[in-house]
């Protein structure tokens, strides 16, 4: 029989009291009422833990770094003990062929019952370099990914790499780095995106806990992100929002407004266009988040954030119109051209009118 989470926790010396605290905290984190805490506890005690294969493609491991810093120590203990039992090449003890064998074993043993967690994405550069930009155990990562995806219960796309492509997919994307949901032949397993570079640790553990507790994926938005963490913008819950509404902005990073902690909108904050939980859950155990530290949000959980020009401009670049072009520059130029053309046309019209009048006069005479 597969151990339950509770078994694993007890084995690790966690008291029942701490366990119940964890359940309450998790319920609160997921926006559930207090009545759900016993439900979570019940699931943790009775349901066999869901095996997770955690694969790494083209990525920087910031998702793993974030994940292992999940604020509540129990979350870390629980989830990590689950993951390390299966496969996560970055943090697992075994290595080499032994480690790779675990993937086959898990797929075989838990067919259709395991979660595939993808950190990073595959480079689909077949044809040019033959998918050689990401090799794991001597084989292209795309092969490993497709194989593991085929029999997965669900796929979690960790981070902006797996969700959107992220910096390795930035123009001109030489390795054809492709987000998981756009990989051909990825199979039919439902894909849940947990974007962010990296995603917030509590968001990551929250998603895993939800799946475990309720045996299904949390409700997602149209882009496949869990609504409980991605349905509001940073801007909607930003503690500097009163300064935005008042029209109090940081004009440059070292000005008086910056010292007073005014809104960072004018120095390029992407809070108004970024769906994430940073301004509520925050980072490092709820300590802070970029805006609180005085830096504008760069919109790291949004698709294409890496290709929209400077992080410090409010109006982002429109690459189709050439480098360093934004809506105001394009529109302003167009308006100026039309303005000059109109003036020239008016001058021409005056001349024509004068000519006509002359003719008219000539005819009358």
């Amino acid at each position, binding site marked *: 029989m597969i151990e339950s989470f509770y078994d694993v926790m007890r084995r690790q010396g966690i008291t029942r009291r701490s366990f119940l605290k964890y359940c309450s905290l998790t319920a609160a984190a997921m926006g559930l009422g207090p009545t759900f805490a016993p439900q979570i506890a019940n699931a943790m005690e009775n349901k066999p833990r869901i095996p997770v294969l955690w694969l790494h493609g083209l990525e920087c491991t910031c998702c793993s770094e974030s994940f292992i810093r999940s604020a509540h120590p129990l979350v870390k203990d629980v989830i990590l003990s689950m993951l390390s039992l299966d496969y996560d090449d970055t943090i697992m003890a075994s290595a080499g062929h032994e480690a790779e064998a675990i993937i086959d074993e898990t797929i075989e043993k838990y067919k259709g019952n395991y979660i595939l967690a993808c950190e990073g994405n595959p480079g689909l550069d077949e044809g040019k370099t033959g998918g050689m930009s990401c090799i794991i155990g001597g084989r292209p990562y795309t092969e490993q990914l497709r194989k593991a995806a085929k029999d997965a219960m669900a796929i979690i796309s960790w981070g902006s790499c797996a969700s959107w492509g992220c910096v390795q997919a930035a123009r001109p994307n030489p390795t054809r780095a492709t987000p998981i949901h756009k990989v051909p032949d990825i199979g039919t397993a439902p894909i849940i995106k947990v974007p962010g570079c990296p995603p917030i640790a509590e968001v990551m553990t929250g998603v895993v806990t939800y799946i475990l507790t309720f045996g299904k994926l949390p409700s997602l*938005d*149209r*882009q496949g992100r869990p*609504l409980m963490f991605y*349905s*509001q*913008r940073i801007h*909607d819950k930003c503690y500097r929002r*009163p*300064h*935005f*509404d*008042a*029209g*109090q*902005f*940081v*004009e440059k990073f070292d000005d008086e*407004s910056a010292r007073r902690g*005014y809104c960072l*909108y*004018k120095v390029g904050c*992407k809070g*108004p*266009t*970024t*769906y994430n939980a940073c301004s509520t859950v925050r980072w490092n155990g709820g300590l802070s988040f970029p805006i609180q530290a005085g830096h504008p949000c760069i*919109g790291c959980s*949004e*698709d*294409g*954030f890496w290709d*929209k020009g400077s992080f410090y401009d*409010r*109006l*982002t670049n*429109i690459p189709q119109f050439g480098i360093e072009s*934004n*809506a*105001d520059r*394009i*529109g*302003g130029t*167009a*308006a100026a051209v*039309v*303005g000059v053309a*109109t003036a020239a*046309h*008016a001058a*021409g*019209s005056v001349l*024509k*009118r004068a000519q006509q*009048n002359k003719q*008219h006069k000539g005819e009358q005479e």
Partner: protein
Amino acid sequence: MSPPAITASAQPAIYVYEAPLRIWHWVNALSVLVLCVTGYFIGSPLPTMPGEASDHFLMGYIRFAHFTAGYIFAIGFVFRIYWALVGNKHSRQVFFPPFFSKDWWGGVWHEWKWYMFFAGEPRKYSGHNPLATLVMFFVLVWGTIFMIITGFALYGEGTQAGSWAHTMFTSWVVPLFGQSQDVHTWHHLGMWVIIVFAMTHIYVAFREDIMSRQSLISTMVSGWRMFKDDRDVDDGR
């Protein structure tokens, strides 16, 4: 030197723009003005305000004005469509350019030549000239639809999931464009398209009021189209 006086024409004036349409035109013009000014300041806010945040609501008022004008703009457009159904034949003109009429395209070409100073004399129309109809169709009709859709999609981001704007617009517009920032950028570009349209529209209205063979500006005030000569109108070509 005075231009041929309008009253010199024996051709009777035609009632072209009915009162509701004229009211819509001016209300729409006003809402567009407010939308462009406030929209610009939403993208590039005014210099920072001094003092306590609780003493001010500048950005809030600018956004409020933008949203209110946006509602007027959108409701006005819905009314405009309604009026196209129940109004006179001129009220439908910009919605249905006769794309399959060769004569009409000939009229577009002639009007282009007139603006490029190649044609000695413009044709005479009781409604819009063919070139105007074409521009109105693509920029006014579709531009307005584009701005209403992207505008409410952005509005729905603030009113959040569950609100009508979010359900009807944000939920599908944002994924369609890729992400929220792209919707902002395109909405912003749309503003510039409207500004360029307005510049051209106003200039041409004045120019044609003087140079063409019919009245223009006074027509959008009184509704009556008056003619400067006795020859037949060229409607339909």
